[in-house]
C-alpha cells in the first residue's frame, strides 16, 4: 500500500474516504500514525502552503511518485465551488464530512510531524474535530444505507466512512465500525422453564440427578411434591413468584 507522504500531490484531489479510514484505525484521538510518519524524514511544509493537502488518486493507483510533490500534506487545494468564503461546505453530500472538516483533519494529520507534539496535545487538537467525533459514535446496525431525515448525522457518517474499503481495495475486518459480529445490545434473553426435563438439560444435569436435586430442594424449603417450580438459567428456583434457592447448591 502506498503511503500518503510518498505520493505526489496534484491539486484537486481530496480523498475523504482514505483519511476517514485512517482516522478509524487510530487510537483514542481517532487519528492513527501509520508507518513512515514521524520518522524524521518529512519535509517542512512549503511557505504559504495551506494545511489542506490531499493524496492524489493517480499516484496511489500507479505508485508513481512525483519528484516535486511535498511529502508533507501541506499542499494547496483549490476550494471546491460549493465551499463558501468562510470554509463551509454548502454542497449537499450524502456521506462524509464537510470541506472544513477535512481541512481540520489534515491539519491534525500534518501536526504529527511536529516532534514537540505530545499525545495529550494531539488528543486536545483532535477532540473538537467533527470527523474524529463522528467516528467515535456508535455504529449503526443493519445494512440500511438510508439517510435519516434531516440530513446525514454523525453516526451515519461514521458508518459510511468506516465501512468503506481502503482506496487500495483492502478491507480490515474488525476495525472500528466494521460489520463484525457482536452481541446484541440492550437485549437480555431470560431463560426459565417449569419443565424439569428441560431445566435439567438447560442446567447441564442428567435427569435422574436433577430429580434428586429437586427433591432435596423441596425438602429444605418445605415444598410439597405437587408444587411447580420455575427454573432460571442461572439455577435460581422460584416458587409463586419469589426466588427460594439455587438448584446448583444441591448438585452432587
Amino acid at each position: 500500500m502506498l503511503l500518503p507522504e510518498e505520493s505526489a500531490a496534484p491539486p484537486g484531489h481530496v480523498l475523504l474516504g482514505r483519511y476517514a479510514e485512517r482516522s478509524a484505525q487510530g487510537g483514542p484521538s481517532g487519528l492513527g500514525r501509520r508507518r513512515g510518519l514521524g520518522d524524521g524524514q518529512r519535509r517542512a511544509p512549503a511557505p504559504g502552503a495551506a494545511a489542506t493537502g490531499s493524496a492524489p488518486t493517480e499516484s496511489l493507483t500507479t505508485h508513481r511518485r512525483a519528484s516535486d510533490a511535498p511529502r508533507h500534506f501541506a499542499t494547496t487545494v483549490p476550494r471546491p465551488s460549493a465551499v463558501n468564503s468562510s470554509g463551509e461546505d454548502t454542497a449537499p453530500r450524502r456521506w462524509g464530512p464537510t470541506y472544513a472538516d477535512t481541512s481540520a483533519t489534515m491539519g491534525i494529520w500534518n501536526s504529527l510531524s511536529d516532534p514537540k507534539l505530545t499525545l495529550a496535545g494531539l488528543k486536545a487538537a483532535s477532540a473538537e474535530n467533527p470527523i474524529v467525533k463522528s467516528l467515535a459514535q456508535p455504529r449503526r446496525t443493519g445494512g440500511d444505507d438510508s439517510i435519516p431525515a434531516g440530513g446525514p448525522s454523525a453516526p451515519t457518517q461514521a458508518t459510511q466512512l468506516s465501512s468503506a474499503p481502503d482506496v487500495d481495495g483492502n478491507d480490515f475486518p474488525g476495525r472500528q465500525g466494521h460489520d463484525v459480529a457482536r452481541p446484541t445490545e440492550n437485549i437480555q434473553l431470560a431463560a426459565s422453564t417449569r419443565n424439569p426435563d428441560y431445566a435439567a438439560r438447560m442446567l447441564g444435569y442428567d435427569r435422574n440427578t436433577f430429580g434428586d436435586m429437586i427433591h432435596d430442594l423441596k425438602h429444605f424449603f418445605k415444598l410439597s411434591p405437587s408444587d411447580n417450580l420455575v427454573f432460571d438459567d442461572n439455577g435460581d428456583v422460584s416458587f409463586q413468584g419469589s426466588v427460594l434457592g439455587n438448584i446448583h447448591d444441591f448438585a452432587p
Partner: protein
Amino acid sequence: MTLRHNASPNQERAQRLAYASATVYGDHLDPTVWTTYFGIEPDISVVKGERFKTPSGRMSTYPGRTGVWGCTSKAAITEDNLDPHLKYLTLRLRLPRPDLPALLVNCGATMRFFCYWSNYTGDRVPVIDPTLRDAIESSGATIEIDEYPPRQ
C-alpha cells in the same frame, strides 16, 4: 433391611430409587429442642433466615425459608422400596410417640415423612406398610411421596 455405610454421596445419589426423610418444620423452630427431644443429631438443620449447609456440603446461596430439623435414610438404607426407609426412620425416632402431636402444636411446627420415589421407568408403584403409616400418622406427622415419573 439393608444397611449401607461408607458409600459416597455421589454413589448413593446415582443408585437410589427411593429414600425418605423425617422432618420437622417451623418458622420459630429451635433445632436444639428437637435434637434433645428425639435424642439424635439431625442430618439437616436450618434456621429460618440463615444460610445452611446443603447435602453436598455447600453453603446455600439463599437463606432458609423456614426452620428445619430432619433426618434421612438416604445414607443408611439401599432398598428400592419405601418400607425399609420408613421403618428405619421410625426406629431411629422411636415412633410412635404419644406426646409428639401436642409438642408439634405447641411449637407451631409440622412434621412430615418426605419420600423420594423414582419412577422413570413408569412401572414402579409405591406401597407403604399400614402399620408404619399408622405409627407415623399417630405421631402427628404426614407422609408425602415425591414421585418422579417417566418423561412426558
